[in-house]
């Protein structure tokens, strides 16, 4: 995978009605790096992910992906530029089979011609899915659904992946499997934005990290710096 996939967010504000959910958020994500967002529930992490993906209307600011401005573009066009997403709650298609779920990952034009090859690669990478190809996705375990969500995202040939709480609700074994996959994607040069309630594990993976509090960025630095920061240790790591 190539190194392209940088993202710059500049002064981004998003509101639900009158309530400002993001207030002039700026961050920059370098290609090939893992950028972690931490913050409590309701701080605006998922809002930020969805705004970047084009799923929410933007009140203010701009988003530049790979050198081109994508602010306000429809989500399917943004997706087709190689900006993939593994959404909170996995968001698989419960009544569709595992196979159909995977095929839907590759409906965007950029991915169609590679669909067959990537499909084979995904079954190689996630043998559990191969055993369940004709099963409805809704009948899979939480961990299997997360594998499916990741595989479905990879079917779309992304260069940047937005991960929103990928280990939430999974067993410890499954959670570390998810982190192992994210690390491997990073090693392959994928750009990653990671939102995680497991702060220690996600900071350990992070090149850059940002702390989001009630819609504003309050702290940023390298993953290692934030891991050592007393404020982060107290508020998010309970140390």
């Amino acid at each position, binding site marked *: 995978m190539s190194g392209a996939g940088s993202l710059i967010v500049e002064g981004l504000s998003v509101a639900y009605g009158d309530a400002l959910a993001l207030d002039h958020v700026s961050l920059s994500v370098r290609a090939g790096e893992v950028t972690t967002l931490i913050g409590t529930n309701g701080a605006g992490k998922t809002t930020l992910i969805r705004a970047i*993906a084009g*799923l929410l209307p933007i009140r203010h600011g701009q988003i530049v992906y790979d050198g081109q401005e994508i602010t306000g573009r*429809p*989500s*399917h066009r*943004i*997706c*087709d530029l190689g900006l993939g*997403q593994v*959404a909170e709650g996995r*968001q*698989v*298609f*419960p*009544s*569709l089979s595992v196979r*159909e*779920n995977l*095929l*839907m*990952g590759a*409906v*965007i034009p950029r991915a169609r011609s590679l669909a067959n090859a990537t499909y084979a690669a995904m079954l190689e990478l996630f043998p559990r899915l191969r055993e369940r190809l004709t099963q409805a996705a809704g009948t899979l375990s939480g961990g299997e659904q997360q594998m499916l969500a990741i595989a*479905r*995202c990879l079917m*779309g040939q992304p260069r940047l992946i937005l991960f929103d709480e990928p280990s939430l609700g999974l067993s410890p074994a499954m959670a570390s499997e998810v982190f192992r996959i994210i690390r491997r994607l990073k090693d392959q040069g994928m750009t990653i934005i990671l939102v995680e309630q497991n702060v220690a594990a996600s900071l350990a993976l992070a090149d850059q990290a940002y702390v989001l509090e009630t819609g504003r960025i309050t702290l940023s630095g390298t993953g290692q710096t934030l891991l050592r920061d007393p404020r982060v240790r107290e508020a998010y790591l309970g140390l």
Partner: protein
Amino acid sequence: MSLSLYAGTLSSGILTGLVYGLAAMGLSVIFGVVRLVNFAHGEMMVLGMFAAVVLAAAWGIDPLLSALPVAALLFVAGYGLQRGLLNRFIDRPDHQQFILLLGIAMILVNGLMMVFGPDARSTNVPYGFDAFFVGGITLDKTRVYAAGGALIVAAALYAFFRFSRTGIAIRACADNQLGAAVVGLDVKGLYAITFGIGSAVVGIAGCLLSLVIDVRPQLAADYTLLSFIIVIVGGLGSMGGALLGGVLIGVSEALAGVLIDPSRKQMVSYGLLILVLLVRPQGLLGKRG
């Protein structure tokens, strides 16, 4: 009454019911995916009927053949309606959508009234009075052809949703709208295609039904209601349920016509609806919500 009369009534009820079922399938597809209750459904069906009447009167085209151009026409109309108008109402409160579609229904039915007047018309096919004789039962040719057409279209629709990429994508939208947006599906575009398909299907059902009934604009509201009843009896979102519901309604109407009084056949449909709502509220083949 003789047994063969019952058998004949039953079979013609089944045949007509299959066409009803096809019409209801269009409604079910639109509701299942776009979550929009198409109050103009019967009006679109009558539009299909009049298109068949005009094509038959002007060029002697068999309604079985006019089903193709009518399907194309109604697909384009339904697609345009969803793209240009309904998509803007998707996130609005339900009653606004209802009023909008009721308005469209009024415009359609009154438009037809202005152009064609209130009198009944028919497609007058050359085989209109021919029949098949099967084991003592007389089956109208028109009814058999209409039912055959309905089954073919229903099978094609099933195959489309089961196997084609667009069909699977539409099911994905119905399944999880956020998930669909996440993988880069153009949800509103797929809504427009779905409304187009639902419209085309009910237009075809209108063409087919024009073989067996006399067509008047005022029928529209009856067919909207009939489609609602069938979808609820069969189970929301179930294509097989729509066909089954259609057959049940078709049969009960036909039997009521013989046993009670043809003008009171609707009473039986509503009775069936109430019974199903009491005993199995999710519909015969519906899943519990």
